[in-house]
């Protein structure tokens, strides 16, 4: 296995052996470790000293189910702290199959007029990957739905593509890195924290992979791995959330809209209420029914990446049966729906598609537009106006460029006090005043407001892993800490976070998950060991943030959430600061 360094200052590449201290580090654990070791915490995120690191997970590219995740790490231009964003795509397994443990993009060219692409493919004779560069300037300024087909045409065979859209090229804090899905759509995003702008700052437009002929991932103990894999498959296939034609496969992640709305925790009109009358029209059930009406059949969801047996990615079809958008996630239909007072599903789908095309993060975009509506740029509920503003972001008009800075920047520009961000990153689709544990995660995670970092929604709302009162702050710091540590390990394993639903409820599934990892690595980890592994990842990230000037005082929610009671429960965020501080102090 190798660490591959691509230096964009002079477009050279270098192969290094994987150091012993990285032996068990993969995915998020490795991207965060390399960023912590090699990136000066006080550097400018878009400057020559930042690095962009890609690493697939422990079991990625093995036959482990639902495990094709790729982690992307760097210093974030949005938060100023460390960032790990991940996506499900064939690109992750293809990188791992060529035995590239980490790909580090560093430096940046003097000549900023040009953009470049790199093509990494397996050389059968040398038994090693090779790196080539190509001038990608002709593809710049195009949205990714235009540029992807050109790249598929340019390279022969089955390739996987990582790229950036217009948002990255403009250097927006709101810009992701996009990977291909199984149908060659440029739709699988490592979306959060401005990772797209970091890639663009290095003038790198594409990383194209062709793993044909590569040896694949080595599995030290095949029997143990197979035993674990079988338990994981059984757990995923029997749990009602993840099984075929279960909640996720039928309705997608947007099945959550109605339950958060019932629970009074669906942020509405820029976090001014916890319920939205139009919510059911924007939910997974509505997407399913609309497709049934338009296509004349029940449409179940598809896999975003190879080997996924949950298959939660949806598509909304037009009345003429053409595709309108794929995929409409819960976070996206909320950010561009309830959060804007919009209940027109077709307009929401248009906005999702435009975000994908321009390279924008749907959460940051929706929250930014909510702040813009609060600031009087357009009224709440004006979906056509919102579509126009997304076009402005994609086209780089002066207004669009200002909105591209993200929700916190928009709040400052527009004099808005109600700005739902932590560490500069927009909050996702769960109201902290109605679901206290997720508020603790938003406040304390190293990532800036991020639900995936410690998804306490499982016990607080969904009844997965027990049931806890979402309105009570009691015991929630410990809950968030446990979820954050476990998640940091899942993010390093290469599995999709959605395996948490079955393995939190089905003990043999959790056991199988650890056996898979032990089987690949030849380790002898227990459940306690993997939580300790996750906690260590968090400590590395935390230390980077502290050195970057982001200390415990930044682990707070915005003041308005302490002052304004949120209907319908009329609660404020009442978790004491000491409880927030205890998340890391007692880790």
């Amino acid at each position, binding site marked *: 296995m190798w660490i591959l360094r691509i230096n964009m200052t002079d477009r050279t590449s270098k192969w290094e052996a994987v150091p012993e201290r990285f032996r068990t580090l993969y995915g998020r654990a490795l991207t965060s470790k390399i960023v912590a070791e090699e990136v000066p915490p006080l550097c400018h995120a878009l400057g020559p000293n930042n690095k962009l690191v890609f690493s697939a997970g422990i079991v990625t590219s093995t036959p482990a189910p639902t495990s094709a995740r790729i982690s992307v790490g760097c210093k974030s231009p949005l938060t100023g702290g460390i960032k790990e964003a991940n996506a499900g795509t064939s690109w992750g397994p293809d990188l791992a199959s060529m035995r590239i443990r980490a790909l580090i993009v560093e430096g940046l060219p003097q000549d900023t007029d040009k953009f470049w692409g790199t093509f990494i493919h397996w050389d059968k004779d040398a038994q090693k990957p090779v790196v080539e560069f190509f001038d990608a300037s002709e593809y710049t300024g195009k949205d990714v739905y235009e540029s992807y087909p050109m790249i598929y045409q340019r390279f022969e065979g089955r390739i996987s593509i990582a790229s950036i859209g217009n948002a990255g090229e403009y250097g927006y804090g709101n810009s992701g890195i996009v990977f291909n899905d199984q149908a060659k759509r440029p739709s699988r995003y490592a979306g959060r924290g401005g990772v797209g702008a970091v890639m663009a700052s290095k003038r790198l437009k594409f990383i194209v992979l062709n793993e044909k002929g590569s040896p694949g991932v080595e599995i030290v103990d095949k029997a143990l791995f197979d035993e674990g894999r079988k338990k994981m498959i059984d757990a995923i296939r029997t749990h009602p959330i993840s099984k075929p034609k279960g909640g996720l496969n039928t309705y997608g992640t947007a099945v959550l809209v109605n339950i958060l709305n019932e629970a009074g925790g669906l942020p509405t009109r820029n976090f001014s209420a916890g319920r939205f009358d139009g919510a059911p029209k924007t939910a997974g059930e509505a997407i399913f029914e609309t497709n049934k009406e338009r296509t004349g059949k029940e449409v179940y969801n598809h896999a975003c990446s190879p080997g996924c047996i949950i298959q939660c990615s949806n598509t909304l079809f037009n009345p003429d049966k053409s595709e309108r958008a794929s995929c409409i996630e819960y976070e996206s239909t909320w950010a561009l729906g309830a959060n804007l007072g919009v209940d027109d599903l077709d307009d929401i789908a248009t906005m999702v598609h435009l975000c994908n095309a321009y390279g924008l993060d749907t959460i940051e975009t929706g929250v930014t537009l909510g702040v813009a509506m609060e600031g009087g740029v357009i009224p709440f509920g004006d979906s056509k106006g919102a579509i126009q503003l997304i076009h402005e972001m994609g086209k780089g008009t002066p207004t669009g460029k200002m909105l591209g800075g993200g929700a916190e920047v928009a709040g400052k520009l527009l004099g808005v006090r109600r700005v739902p961000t932590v560490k500069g990153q927009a909050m996702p689709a769960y109201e902290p005043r109605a679901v206290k544990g997720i508020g603790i995660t938003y406040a304390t995670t190293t990532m800036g407001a991020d639900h995936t970092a410690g998804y306490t929604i499982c016990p607080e709302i969904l009844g*997965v892993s027990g049931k806890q009162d979402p309105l009570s702050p009691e015991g929630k710091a410990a809950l968030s800490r446990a979820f954050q540590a476990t998640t940091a390990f899942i993010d390093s394993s290469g599995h999709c976070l959605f395996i948490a639903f079955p393995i939190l409820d089905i003990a043999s599934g959790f056991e199988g998950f650890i056996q898979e990892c032990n089987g690949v690595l030849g380790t002898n980890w227990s459940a306690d060991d993997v939580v300790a592994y996750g906690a260590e990842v968090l400590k590395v990230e935390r230390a980077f943030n502290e050195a970057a000037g982001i200390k415990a005082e930044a682990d707070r929610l915005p003041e308005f959430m302490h002052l304004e009671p949120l209907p319908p429960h009329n609660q404020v965020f009442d978790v004491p600061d000491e409880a927030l501080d205890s998340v890391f102090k007692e880790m």
Partner: protein
Amino acid sequence: MQVYVRLFATLRRFVPEAKIGVTLSLELPEGARVRDVMAHYRLPEDEVKLAYVNGIYQEPDFVLHDQDEIGLFPPVGGG
């Protein structure tokens, strides 16, 4: 007493009139519980994972009151 019921996701297939966004009105005797709502619509108990009454999670034996709003869900997840 009168209560209001919303059914979501796969539970709607047991009740044809439970269309998207439609709230059903239901007359129940005083002292009725969440479980009685499930029985009225012939929802298999093992299909109903979560009941929210006026926005608060409640167990199946929770005693309802006049004008209560009830949302019933099968197991759901996402994120």
